[in-house]
């Protein structure tokens, strides 16, 4: 059984403007040791998919419709907040985008980290020996993410660290409980390009060493190509193509995946030849029938607009949700 499986997940969010359909049947599986890149445009539901795995989307205003999330035998959406806390920080770690805002500015790094370590150990907060052990673990973990003199730096405040260093601290906090699954939501987007590479290398070295499954949410197809074993492409709240990274990148079968890969500049790209995709994402407030990509798709025909295309299996777990899959654009 897969470590994580998301089946036909539906999520809507109630707002003043009405009900927005954010997730429209997300299907995704992740095995131990797999690193899955979840890519797609801004607003397609990548982050909410990631947050749903830890049940961190507040409902209301969000409402889960059909679908389920299973993590190692746990029915996530059926779990209480207490049951979820037993998973968070211990079995599931999370890293977010902006390291400058994800650490509490008024508390020492050590204070925040030791609290997380204590939770991951399941220890009594007030026990002296547990406090001491949490401190030891924090120091060891900080050294592992490349923070020198960790012993002293525990007493520093977030503003005394650079952006890259702060993300290292957050990585250390997310991994201190030795989770089975790490959800990394654009972990390097807010960093300098030169620092991005360092952080990603560090993250993936640890992940491979500890055999942690990763759901990497990103815009950066280059990162996916370099680091991920699997990839899932998301469009308007649905995974439209997924599979082993090389299969999807070498043989993109959904018109949207093709367009996405076609929009990546390479060294051979000449001035003015970079291709974009016309049109814009569908309005989540409007009801929709058929394939959500149809309005922007060059291959779309009448039957595309009638029913939601089921996922077709192209072999080796390469799935694509397009009735015209394989037809060359």
């Amino acid at each position: 059984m897969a470590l994580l499986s998301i089946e036909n997940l539906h999520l809507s969010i109630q707002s003043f403007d009405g009900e927005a359909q954010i997730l429209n049947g997300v299907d995704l599986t992740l095995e131990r040791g797999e690193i899955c890149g979840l890519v797609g445009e801004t607003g397609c539901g990548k982050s909410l998919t990631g947050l749903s795995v830890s049940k961190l989307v507040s409902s209301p205003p969000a409402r889960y419709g059909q679908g389920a999330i299973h993590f190692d035998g746990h029915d996530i959406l059926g779990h209480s907040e207490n049951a979820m806390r037993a998973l968070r920080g211990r079995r599931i770690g999370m890293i977010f985008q902006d390291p400058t805002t994800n650490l509490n500015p008024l508390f020492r790094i050590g204070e925040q980290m030791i609290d997380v370590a204590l939770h991951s150990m399941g220890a009594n907060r007030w026990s002296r020996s547990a406090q001491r052990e949490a401190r030891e673990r924090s120091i060891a973990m900080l050294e592992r993410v490349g923070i020198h003199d960790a012993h002293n730096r525990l007493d520093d405040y977030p503003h005394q660290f650079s952006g890259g260093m702060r993300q290292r601290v957050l990585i250390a906090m997310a991994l201190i409980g030795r989770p089975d699954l790490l959800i990394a939501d654009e972990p390097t987007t807010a960093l300098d390009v030169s620092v991005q590479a360092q952080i990603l290398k560090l993250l993936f070295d640890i992940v491979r060493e500890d055999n942690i499954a990763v759901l990497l949410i990103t815009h950066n197809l280059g990162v996916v190509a370099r680091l991920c074993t699997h990839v899932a492409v998301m469009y308007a709240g649905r995974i439209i193509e997924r599979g082993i990274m090389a299969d999807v990148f070498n043989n993109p079968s959904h018109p949207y995946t093709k367009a996405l890969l076609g929009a990546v500049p390479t060294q051979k790209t000449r001035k003015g030849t970079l291709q974009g995709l016309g049109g814009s994402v569908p309005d989540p407030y409007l009801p929709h029938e058929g394939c959500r990509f149809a309005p922007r798709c060059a291959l779309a025909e009448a039957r595309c607009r009638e029913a939601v295309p089921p996922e077709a299996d192209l072999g080796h777990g390469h799935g694509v949700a397009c009735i015209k899959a394989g037809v060359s654009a």
Partner: protein
Amino acid sequence: MIRFIIRRLVLLVPVFIGLTLLVFTISHILPGDPVKLAAGPQASAEEIASLTREFGMDRPLPQQYWHYASGLLQGDWGQSVLTRRPVAADLKIYLPATLELVFAAIILAIVIGIPAGLLSAITANRWPDYLIRILSLASIAMPRFFLALVLQLVFAMSLAWLPLNGRFPIIDLPPPTVTGMLTLDSLLAGDWLAFTTSCEHLLMPALAMSLSPLATITRMMRASTLDVLQQDFVLTERALGLSQSLIILKYVLRNAFSSTLTVIGLYIGWLLSGSVLVETVFDWPGIGLYATKAIVTQDFMPVMGVTLSIGFIFVLVNLAIDLLYGVINPKVRYQ
């Protein structure tokens, strides 16, 4: 840090020179003659003239100011024209009474307001939040003296749980004076009976006074907690499994409290200068009553004394608040 405190204390000197000048000038350009009022309607011109000479009011203003300012430094705060009592001695009695009232009120406001604001934020748009919001709106809207009267009617007249007014029963023996605040003094003397007695007298006026800061602190706390709850680090803390109570009571509370702290500092000044209504209703012998009597009779030495001491306390309180910022927020550096 030490240098910062010293520099702030040195800066107090020009502030006080300015304050004395301002208060002195204003009270002397006001129309009316305090000596004439003090001497009474039957006083002859000679009597008034000799009184004026006695109080030095025949001399030119700069000379009077110099006399007053140099007196201040030696602990001579002038003399009331009406009662002939030295202002410094009066302040020693009345100022602690008001300070006790103001501090009790602000402590009540903090102790009730901070948890109420937190509760209001974490139950936002559900019934505890609605209840707290309605109550705090009502208490901002209700005048203090009116609440004071209602409290007296209910707790003193009908239920007879608390004394109607005053600070301490005349027939009982008050604790030896150290700070002038009866609650503190009775604790220092280890006199439990005197402590409960003075607390009973303090409770109603402090409650009446705390109402408005209480409501403001609650609303501030609610708003800033809601703001902090939206911050990314709260999501990270939740995502890594920290309990809701730990997140709220440790991590969110400190963030939300720092903006509420400013309001607390301002309110202490506001309560000090606005204590007269509550003091009148509860017959509380504080500087509010003292200053009002002096203002009515244009007895400006007490007025200046009160103004200066309120100014002095206000500046010190705000220095303390500034230092507290540094304790709460490590990014605030004092150089």
